[in-house]
C-alpha cells in the first residue's frame, strides 16, 4: 500500500535533482572561467584522441641527423618538426600529443578506480554504520595519514612499473577522499523520508542504496573527481619523471621532462614544452572544477570568488 508513497517521493527527488543538473549547466555556462576551461579541456581531449588525423607521425621514430632541432620559429628550426626534436631526433610535438593520451588515460582510469572503490566503501560505511563503518573509517584514517606520494612510490617499487600497476596504485591510494565524502552525504540522506519510506515497505537495502541513495550523492563526487583527475595527472607525471611511471618507450610528459633535463643548456624546448602541456591540461581541469563547484554548491553561488 505504501509503495506509491516511496515511489512518488523518489520521483520528486529525481525531478529535483534533474532540475539541479539543469541549473548547474546553466550556471556553468554563465561562468567565463568554466567556459574557457571546458573548451580548452575539450580541445585537449580531442587532440589526444585523434591527433593522428592531422599529425600522423611515429612518436618513437628517430632521425639522428635532425637531433636537437629547435622549434620552427627559432633559427635552425623547420616546419617538418614544428616543436623541434629531442636528443634522438624524435618529434617533440607528436610525443607531447601522445603523452597527453597516456596522461589523460591514467588520470581518468585512476579516478575511476578510486571513485569506484571509494563509492562502494563510502556507501557501506555511511548506510550500514556500526562495525563496518568503524573498520572502514579506521582503515581510511591510516591511508589518510600515509603520505600519498610515498605510498604510491613504495607500492610501485614493489610491484614494478606498468601502466596497469600505475592506474591501480594511484587509484587505490586515493579512495579515502571519496569514501569520506560519500559517507558524509549518505549519513544525511539516509534519514530523508523517501529512504525511510522505502525501508518501511521492506525494500532490500541493496536496492535502496543503489536506486535511492546513490543518485543523490553524485554531485559531490563529480566535483571531487574533477579536482582529483588534475592531481593524479600531476602525480603521474611526477612518477614518470622519477622513472617510476609508465615504462619506456611509451612517451609521457614526465619522462620527456626527465630526459630533456640533461640537455637543459642546449635545448630549452625539451624541458619547457612538455611541462607547458601539463600546465594547460591541469589549468583547464581546475577552471572547470572551480566552475562546477560553484555551480553545484548553491551556498557559494552568490558569493563572487
Amino acid at each position: 500500500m505504501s509503495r506509491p508513497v516511496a515511489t512518488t517521493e523518489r520521483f520528486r527527488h529525481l525531478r529535483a535533482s534533474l532540475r539541479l543538473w539543469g541549473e548547474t549547466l546553466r550556471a556553468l555556462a554563465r561562468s567565463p572561467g568554466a567556459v574557457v576551461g571546458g573548451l580548452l579541456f575539450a580541445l585537449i581531449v580531442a587532440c589526444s584522441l585523434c591527433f593522428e588525423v592531422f599529425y600522423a607521425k611515429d612518436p618513437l621514430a628517430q632521425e639522428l641527423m635532425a637531433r636537437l632541432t629547435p622549434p620552427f620559429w627559432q633559427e635552425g628550426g623547420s616546419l617538418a618538426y614544428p616543436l623541434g626534436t629531442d636528443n634522438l631526433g624524435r618529434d617533440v610535438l607528436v610525443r607531447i600529443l601522445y603523452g597527453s593520451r597516456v596522461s589523460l588515460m591514467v588520470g581518468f582510469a585512476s579516478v575511476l578506480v578510486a571513485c569506484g572503490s571509494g563509492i562502494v566503501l563510502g556507501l557501506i560505511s555511511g548506510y550500514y554504520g556500526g562495525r563496518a563503518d568503524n573498520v572502514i573509517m579506521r582503515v581510511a584514517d591510516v591511508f589518510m595519514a600515509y603520505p600519498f606520494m610515498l605510498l604510491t612510490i613504495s607500492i610501485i617499487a614493489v610491484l614494478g612499473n606498468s601502466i596497469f600497476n600505475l592506474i591501480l596504485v594511484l587509484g587505490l591510494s586515493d579512495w579515502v577522499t571519496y569514501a569520506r565524502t560519500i559517507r558524509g552525504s549518505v549519513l544525511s540522506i539516509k534519514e530523508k523520508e523517501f529512504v525511510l519510506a522505502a525501508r518501511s515497505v521492506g525494500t532490500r537495502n541493496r536496492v535502496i542504496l543503489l536506486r535511492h541513495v546513490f543518485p543523490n550523492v553524485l554531485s559531490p563526487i563529480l566535483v571531487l573527481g574533477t579536482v582529483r583527475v588534475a592531481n593524479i595527472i600531476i602525480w603521474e607525471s611526477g612518477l614518470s619523471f622519477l622513472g617510476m611511471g609508465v615504462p619506456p618507450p611509451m612517451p609521457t610528459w614526465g619522462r620527456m621532462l626527465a630526459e630533456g633535463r640533461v640537455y637543459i643548456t642546449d635545448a630549452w624546448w625539451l624541458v619547457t614544452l612538455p611541462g607547458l602541456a601539463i600546465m594547460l591540461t591541469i589549468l583547464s581541469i581546475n577552471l572547470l572544477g572551480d566552475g562546477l563547484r560553484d555551480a553545484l554548491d548553491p551556498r557559494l553561488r552568490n558569493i563572487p570568488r
Partner: protein
Amino acid sequence: MGRYLLKRLWHTVYVVVGISIISFFFIHLSGDPVMLMLPGDASMAEVETLRQQLGFNDPLYVQYWRFASHAVRGDLGSSLYHRVPAIDLIFERLPASLELAGAAMLIALVVSIPLGIVSAVKRGSLLDMTSMLGALFGLSMPHFWLGIMLILLFSVTLGWLPTSGRGTLAQLVMPSIALGLSLMAMFARLTRSVMLEVLSQDYVRTARAKGLREKIVIGKHALKNALIPLVTVAGMQFGFLIGGTVIIETVFAWPGVGRLVVQAIFSRDYPLVQATVLVLAVIFVVVNLLVDLIYLYLDPQISYLEQK
C-alpha cells in the same frame, strides 16, 4: 580537554600501527630479500641457512611482531646497500629535508596570507583578480617542472643561482620556491574565501559598528577565526610537502630523505625504503597531532563540544 587528548593520542597510535602493517606487507610482497643479500652463485643450502637465520621461514605475523618490536626500540633494520642501520642514514638526511619543507611552508604562508587577506578585503580589485589568476596558474604547475623552469631561467640563462646542492642560502632559494608555490596558491585562495566568509559575520559588523578601526577588525576579529581552517589545511599539506620533497630533491640534487628513498628504490634496498616510509609517515602523523593541539588553542569550541 583530557578526553579529547586521549582520543587523539589513541588515534595516533593505531594510525602508526596501521602504517607499519601496510609498509611491512608491501615490502613482503616484493619477494625474497635473501636473494638480494647473497651473491648470485650462492647455493640453495646457503640461501636456506640465511633464511633460517634471519627468520624468514617464520609465519608472517611472527615476522611482523619481530619487526614491530624492533621498530619500537628504534631498530628499523639495516640498509642492504649501505650496510649500516637504516635509521642512521635517515636521521643523517632528515635535517636537509625538514629545512627544505620548512622553507617552502614559510614562503608559502608569508606570501599567501597577506595576499589572501588583501584580496578578500579589496574584493574585485585588480590586485584581487591578478593574484587569484596567479594562484590558479600556481596550482596548475607541477612543482618539479617549476623547479626546472627556475633552473632554466636563474641558473642557465641568468647565471644568478646555483643549480644544485645544499649549504648556502642561495642554494635553498629555488628548491623551496618550487616546492612552496602550489601551497602558496592554495593558501591564498583559501585565506581569501575564508576571510570573505568571516567578514560577512555578525560579530565583524558589530566590531565595525562600535567604531573599531578597520585594521583591528580585520587583524584581530576576522583573522583569528580565519586562521582555524588555514592551520588545518597547512597541517594536512605537510604530507604533500613530504611527497613533494621526493621529486624536488631529485631535481636539485638536494641531499635529503626524498633522494635517499628514490635511490633506495632503484637499488632495491627494501629495508631502507620501508624504514624511510615509516619514519616519514610517523613524522606526518605527529605533525597532524600538533596541528590538532594548535587547533584546540585557536578554537575553544572544540574542547567544549568534546566534553558535552
